């Protein structure tokens, strides 16, 4: 079932205040996981809460399953909402938490019992029904929250930073688990996250938000490889930024010349974004040492190494390479190196006066 948001605006406070969500439109495809990704304050949670009905947009419409749900109260939207804080009912057992939505719908007895057992199995917590939320770990609570949301057989599942409060290990496990759960249920899911890795790994579709607007929407591949603007290029994957001007229809990035976007006039300032893994570092081969960079620092992060290189221009860049590559290269901090850019995204700066 689809979720469609059209030209939604949400302001907190006076009309003159900046909108938290500013004219946002997107569509979540049925049966897929769509991520609402963005830095904090980008309006992603507000957007999700408006889809659930917990906030009312100032203008714009929200469609759930093809019907206009903008005016409908959250009570009647039949969406499953999972909060970052889990929001489990602390005074109820796990089973009562999961059964809550069904009991509200007037279901009683064995049917509820059966469904609760089923859901506990689905979230891999069989036998936990009689415990209280405080007796569970963070990851377990989050799974109970998911079971409770799924119990009402919602049209869509809305997850607000579901793994935000968990430690890395549990987060990675739950991510995998959520993917397999989604394969089983096939329920249309919207996931709010600030963690790009999470979005890239989990979703078929990403809506990247910045300052209340959609910066770019598309597949993870689209956003990563074809960023529409500077924000997308720098937010996703992290990037080294080279500043320069258009010269002979090209951008000079390090020792490389990369074609500038068509229509860019000579001398226009430009920015080139180069991902840390799109830079090759090699031993200098008889070059003028002035053109060379110098290794400032090596930081080993598990399987890969971050190499910080200062360029003759005074800029400092980050290069990412595997440990094996670094061992082969055999360089130490202070060594001169040549730097090749494999791929860069070039944006001509837009001026608005």
């Amino acid at each position, binding site marked *: 079932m689809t979720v469609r948001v059209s030209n939604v605006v949400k302001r907190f406070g006076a009309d003159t205040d900046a909108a938290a969500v500013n004219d946002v439109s997107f569509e979540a495809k049925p049966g897929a996981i769509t991520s609402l990704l963005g830095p904090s304050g980008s309006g992603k949670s507000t957007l999700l809460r408006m889809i659930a009905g*917990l906030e009312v947009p100032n203008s714009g419409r929200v469609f759930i399953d093809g019907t206009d749900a903008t005016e409908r109260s959250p009570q009647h939207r*039949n969406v499953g*909402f999972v909060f970052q804080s889990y*929001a489990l009912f602390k*005074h109820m057992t796990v089973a009562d938490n999961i059964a*809550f*939505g069904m009991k*509200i719908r007037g279901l009683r007895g064995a049917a509820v019992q059966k469904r609760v057992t089923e859901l506990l199995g689905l979230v891999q917590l069989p036998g936990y029904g009689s415990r209280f939320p*405080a007796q569970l770990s963070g990851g377990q609570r989050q799974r109970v929250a998911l079971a*409770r949301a799924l119990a009402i057989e919602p049209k869509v599942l809305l997850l607000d930073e579901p793994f935000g409060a968990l430690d890395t290990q549990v987060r990675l496990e739950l991510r995998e688990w959520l993917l397999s759960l989604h394969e089983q249920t096939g329920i249309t899911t919207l996931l709010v996250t600030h963690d790009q890795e999470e979005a890239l790994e989990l979703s078929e579709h990403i809506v990247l938000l910045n300052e209340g607007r959609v910066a770019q929407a598309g597949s993870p591949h689209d956003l990563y490889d074809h960023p529409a603007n500077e924000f997308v290029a720098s937010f996703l994957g992290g990037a080294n930024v080279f500043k320069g001007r258009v010269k002979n229809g090209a951008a000079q990035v390090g020792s490389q010349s990369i074609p500038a976007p068509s229509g860019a006039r000579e001398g226009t300032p430009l920015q080139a974004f180069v991902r840390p893994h799109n830079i090759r570092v090699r031993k200098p081969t008889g070059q003028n040492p002035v053109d060379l960079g110098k290794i400032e620092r090596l930081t080993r992060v598990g399987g890969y190494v971050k190499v910080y290189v200062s360029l003759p221009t005074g800029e400092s860049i980050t290069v990412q390479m595997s440990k094996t590559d670094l061992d082969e290269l055999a360089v130490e901090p202070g060594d001169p190196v040549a730097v090749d850019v494999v791929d860069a995204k070039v944006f001509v700066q837009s001026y608005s006066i």
Partner: protein
Amino acid sequence: MSGVLTQRTGGNARRRDTRVGESAVTRAILTAIALLFLAVFLVAPIVTVFGAAFSKGVGPYWDALHQDETLDAIRLTLLTAGIAVPLNVVFGIAAAWLISKYDFWGKSALVTLVDLPFSVSPVISGLIFVLLFGAHGWFGPYLSEHDIKIIFAVPGIVMATTFVTFPLVAREVIAVMQAQGSDEEEAALTLGASGWQILLRITLPKVRWGLIYGIILCNARAMGEFGAVSVVSGHVRGLTNTLPLQVEILYNEYNFVGAFAVASLLCALALLTLVVKKVAEWSVSARDARRAASPHAKSVAVEACSSFEGVVP
């Protein structure tokens, strides 16, 4: 005050003996000061009350309580508390719900106003009602025309008591509700619950210990209120005398056994309040020890007994 502190936290977590703090000597001195203070200002008065009440034995004590006027005072006190406490529970929950769930114009003014009866002297609180409903008050002519008696009658006593005690439930519930936020309510809403279902199944169970604590305090104060009730009651024997007023009358008549016997009833109520609160805390701490929720632990003794100020001679 370390003695009191220990008492407060005793019900919750076992406090570790940390190295932060005072030496053994300092601790002993502080404990001694606290115990001495308690002995002089709390234990001694209570012992005196019961001692004087039973000074002539159980028979006279029993007779003193069985006078018609005293029985009427007990009845009126129970009636007053029986009306004021439920009213304040409804008001307290409504105000807390409003304040913690909604943003509206004048919210901070409302929060401040809730505390007003605490900051006004009880005598003034009583006078306010005399000025409003007395024979020469704003509504006086209208009321006498329709033969409605409020001042020097039961309605006035109930109103004054309700006014004086109304922050007690509201303050407790507001504090607990605000501390707990609205996440659970929002979750219930998305699961299809209506406003009433959320209130009954989620919010009230969440704040139940704050609510119970507020009710206990409110009840103690409602039964013990002297100043405001004294102004509006008119001291009509057998009709508008509550227990604290009865104590004053008996004492002024040099009927010491009678005065102290009635006072002992009020003190017994205070002690009972304490026991009820402790039992409530114990029953919850047994379950909540695992749930990390801390019941509202405050020393009720001081506040319960302080509502009898001016009454216990």
